[in-house]
């Protein structure tokens, strides 16, 4: 990704063009993301309570069924063509919670259904989520490694 040096002419145009560019409404986007993201997380908390009170889950184990429920809902919304509109409105608010992860998987699966199940759905389902999984797992590994080394150094283990 070598960046080429810009010529003075290019720089001049870039400045001219910048003044016409519509800016992202960052503050408005943050507020929208805060509330939509908050609502999704509150919903998750609700499911979590339900799993603890009505099924035999504890606070530690209720995370998995809660994520699964939220992912299931986001997949339904994606399939019905609602989640992308929510995404345009909420931005990070609907992308950061686990529902955004579900959306990225199911949207790729739907998109590539026309190329068949093996090469289409199978080959492309993690097109967007793949890097999240890779770097998520890798960073978890690094953090766990650091924790282990620190604990060993302090002679706890």
């Amino acid at each position, binding site marked *: 990704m070598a960046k080429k040096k810009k010529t003075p002419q290019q720089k001049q145009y870039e400045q*001219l063009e910048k003044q*016409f560019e*519509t800016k992202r409404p960052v503050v408005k986007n943050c507020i929208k993301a805060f509330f939509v993201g908050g609502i999704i997380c509150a919903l998750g908390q609700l499911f979590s309570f339900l799993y603890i009170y009505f099924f035999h889950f504890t606070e530690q184990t209720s995370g998995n069924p809660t994520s699964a429920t939220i992912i299931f809902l986001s997949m339904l919304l994606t399939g019905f063509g609602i989640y*992308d509109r929510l995404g345009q409105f909420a931005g990070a608010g609907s992308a950061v919670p686990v529902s955004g992860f579900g959306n990225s998987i199911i949207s790729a699966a739907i998109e590539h259904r026309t190329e068949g199940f093996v090469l289409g759905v199978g080959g492309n389902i993690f*097109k*967007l989520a793949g890097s999240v999984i890779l770097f998520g797992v890798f960073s978890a590994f690094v953090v766990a490694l650091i924790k282990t080394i620190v604990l060993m150094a302090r002679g706890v283990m």
Partner: protein
Amino acid sequence: MLKGKQSWIFENKPVIQSTGVSGGPFEGNGNLAKDFDVLHEDLWMGKTSYEQAHRVLLEEAAQTALQKSGRTAEDIQFLLAGDLINQITPSSFAARDLKIPYFGLFGACSTSMEGLALSSFIVNYNGAKNILTGASSHNAAVEKQFRYPTEYGGQKPPTAQWTVTGAGVALLTENDGTYRNTPYTTAATIGKVMDMGLIDPFNMGGAMAPAAADTIQAHFNDLGVDASHYDLIVTGDLGKIGRDSVMALLKEKGIYTDENKFKDCGLLVYKSDQPVQSGGSGAGCSATVLYGHLLNEMKKGTYKRILVVATGALLSPLTVQQGESIPCIAHAVSIEI
């Protein structure tokens, strides 16, 4: 005839005898719905993939143009068409079904005017009696290739543009002097590839504006005219940001353009309350707006002489990911009635 550095004059004034314009649901709710010949309510158009639906758009537009002219596919010598999909398969597959000898074109969103300029040249010099030329794009097929899956909930910045689902096809024929109130082409300017170093694929208008400005300037220089020569100068798909940028660039170059006589197809095609961010885009944008709305307006007498400048961003998802800047091109064709 070559005029100046990069322009052609068409002395024999090839006639745009008829046109066909097809569109999708978003265009049906848009500003120019009444100027479309065929409108689909569903993006799938009865097919099993968006790519097939894309092909249907072009086929229908071509058939409509043929029907309106009273000709059949056998009367047409050549088909010049293109789109944005890899290896321009929708156009080539449509050409297979139309059974017309075919030139596949790629000029990204400038394909419509690339095709019209070349067709005019061929007809002008008796290379053909009748030519079909057109361009098409399908929102979902193009999004799939260039951006994210259609249902992915990513937030688009306000500089992004909405790819038009539609195809516009024109039937160009020799001018035997019998056509009344029918538009004809008089000149074309072929643009050179311009790169101002912009790298944001969600701001194509800004990247393409210098190419449009360069082609407009070249056109005026080659033909020895100025902006007042035209009732309307219309760009392909610059959107809000691109239009403002090109106006400023032209002003910098000392070319005066009247704001009311400088329009953009990407801004004409949709209503202001549709969620298209900066405006429409895509190969079908200039094709549908010109061959539908603008030519209809010319026939009504609104405009006598227009200059259409279709702009294209010659990028691919690969070059964007590799951090390359976006090279752009623009071709201009002048149409009179």
